[in-house]
């Protein structure tokens, strides 16, 4: 915390320094999404050290101005405005979908490229006048829903029950999952909602069990995703249980314990990087990130969320190098920002920790399904690779 403040302060003081490329970073380092935002922030602190050692990008110093939005949309928008005014060449962030959506009009008006670290497809689709400036690195619900549906079909599942958060996350999953399921001939027989602060989901669980689905998908994130799974098991549900990639953190395993054994979930391949086959494209990059992160923050400290931040920089770095050749960031910031946006969109076959990025005019996610999702099973309190889609 102190160190991070010190970094932010140092950056603010060195605003006069010529030739420094400022990259704005907004993350949710505190508040509800902190368990996602902290590894993202840590990743950028780590990158700052790395860049200081290397002397920056193409001989230009790079400084990350890291601001905390406290998991709050208003704060994220305010931070974005500030970063735009402080001449950031690009903005990375933020952690959550609603806040990222709030930032879009600001960056679009100021014509600053932005790479979001949040999940929803709505952030980059459709690529209209505003989203022209916006890219993102995490897999969408749509992509992950496809992974689940493909896996369900392969296991002979015919009927599915759904229970998800009564918020944008749960609704998004319900929408994309039901669309994907329909296309594959799966029948969604129950669609229930609950709140992350709920103390009981007995009613919803009973309703699902009464319909006897072959599998249940829980559209929730973090530790509150444990409650429905435990209730289903306590009420004697014996079918398959799927979770979303929103639970891929150690806290879920800690709180879930025995209740979440055997859970199936789609995840970014980095979650099980060591178990990936040697031919898997992102394996080497993922292991490299994990090794660096654990060297700095301790064994077992890495998460898939920090890796999204790393991917954002993997995309940004070559784009910066190319943009520096086309425009002068000191003389004409607007032209440089525009050039940078074009160069990000020109990214082709970039191997990152979560997959391979190829942006196009219509696709600002750029991940290929086969490389960006794997199925994982919880076994013995650990993540175990179940299958890849290659």
């Amino acid at each position, binding site marked *: 915390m102190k160190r991070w403040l010190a970094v932010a302060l140092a950056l603010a003081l060195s605003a006069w320094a010529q030739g420094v490329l400022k990259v704005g970073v907004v993350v949710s380092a*505190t*508040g*509800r*999404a*902190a*368990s996602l935002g902290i590894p993202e922030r840590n990743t950028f602190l780590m990158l700052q050290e790395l860049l200081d050692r290397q002397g920056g990008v193409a001989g230009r110093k790079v400084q990350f101005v890291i601001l905390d939005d406290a998991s709050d949309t208003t704060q994220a928008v305010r931070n974005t405005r500030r970063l735009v005014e402080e001449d950031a060449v690009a903005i990375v962030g933020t952690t959550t979908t609603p806040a990222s959506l709030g930032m879009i009009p600001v960056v679009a008006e100021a014509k600053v490229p932005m790479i979001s670290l949040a999940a929803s497809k709505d952030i980059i689709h459709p690529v209209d006048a505003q989203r022209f400036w916006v890219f993102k690195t995490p897999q969408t619900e749509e992509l992950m829903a496809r992974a689940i549906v493909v896996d369900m079909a392969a296991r002979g599942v015919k009927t599915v029950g759904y*229970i998800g958060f*009564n918020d944008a996350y749960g609704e998004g999953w319900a929408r994309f999952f039901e669309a994907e399921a329909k296309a594959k001939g799966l029948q969604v027989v129950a669609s*229930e*909602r*609950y*709140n*992350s*602060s*709920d*103390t*009981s*989901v*007995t*009613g*919803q669980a*009973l*309703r699902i069990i*009464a319909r006897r689905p072959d599998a249940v998908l829980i559209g929730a994130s*973090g*530790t*509150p995703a*444990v*409650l429905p799974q435990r209730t289903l098991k*306590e*009420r*004697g549900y014996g079918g398959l249980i799927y979770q979303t990639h929103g639970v891929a953190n150690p*806290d879920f395993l800690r*709180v879930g*314990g025995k209740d979440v054994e055997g859970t199936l979930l789609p995840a970014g391949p980095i979650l099980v990087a060591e178990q990936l086959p040697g031919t898997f494209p992102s394996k080497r990059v993922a292991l490299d990130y994990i090794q660096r992160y654990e060297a700095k923050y301790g064994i077992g400290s890495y998460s898939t969320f920090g890796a999204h931040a790393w991917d954002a920089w993997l995309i940004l770095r070559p784009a910066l190098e190319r943009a520096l050749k086309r425009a002068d960031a000191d003389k004409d910031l607007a032209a440089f920002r525009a050039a940078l946006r074009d160069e990000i969109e020109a990214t082709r076959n970039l191997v990152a920790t979560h997959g391979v990025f190829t942006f196009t005019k219509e696709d600002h996610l750029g991940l290929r399904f086969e490389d960006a999702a794997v199925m994982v099973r919880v076994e013995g309190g650990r993540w175990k690779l179940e299958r890849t889609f290659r």
Partner: protein
Amino acid sequence: MDATILGFLLLDGLQNGVIYGLLAIAMVLVFAVTRVILVPIGELLMFAPLSLVWLQEGRIPGTLGLAVALGLLWAGVARGRGAWVPLLGALGLSALFFLALAVKPLAYGAAVLLVVYLGVATYRVFFQPLREATVLSLLIMAVGLHVAFQGLGLVFFGPEQFRPEPLLKGEVAVGLSWQGVLVLLFAFLSVLALYAFFRFSLYGKALLAAAESRLGARLSGISPEEAGMVAFGIASLLAGLSGLLLAPLINAAYFMGFMLGLKGFVAAILGGLASYPVAFLGALLVGFFESFTSFFASAYKEALVFLLLVPALFYQSLRARAVEE
């Protein structure tokens, strides 16, 4: 919808309802004696299981720091006469916490005493100086404390949930664990104990007198300040114990308290913030209603539960007459 499902739903509603009921009783009691609507009761409830988890993991929870800080403020407010009570309390509490690191079973007692100490200190520091203020000022203070305590909970315990080990493992029958039985038993005994307390003990009678008329109580030698402290003490005791018993069933997190407290408040409102039995029955109604709406219309559950307030408030407004503060 068959008999089994009906049974499960009723049981689920009962289990949640009794906890709302205890919180509702605590709120009615505190309101009657001090005119404070105890919004932060959910946070007091939350502090207990999370402090327990911290102690069991061999760490001193930040809540102890909060208690000591409030204790010092309390001593400051009390000045001279009576200042040694909070200081001694804080000292004893700290000693108990460090002892609990070594002797694990003590952690339960430490967590409950912490919450009681926090509750009483909260009254002494924040509400007693405001005792002549309007109900609205007291409510504003209460809401402020709720926000502050929840924020502190996030700082102390982080954003994730924790699951303490249940006191009693295993299931009695399908749908009811021993821990659930413990919750029901606790609620039953609490109601009984409260009844006996108010009916037979001098303190209880004094408390009722203070609730009835503060001036009258004062004239007959009952100190309203002391009554306020006892009311807050009982309320936080109920909250702390409920939290400890409930946490293994529902997972504990910094945000767990608000919804529980709010539903307790809905129940208390159903009882017009005056009647204990009606508040408790109202809480059971909220529990059952919640359980059934989560079966039939899960997406609208919260909205429907809070919609229960409308007829209750309407009824209250019809009955209302101008009363002196």
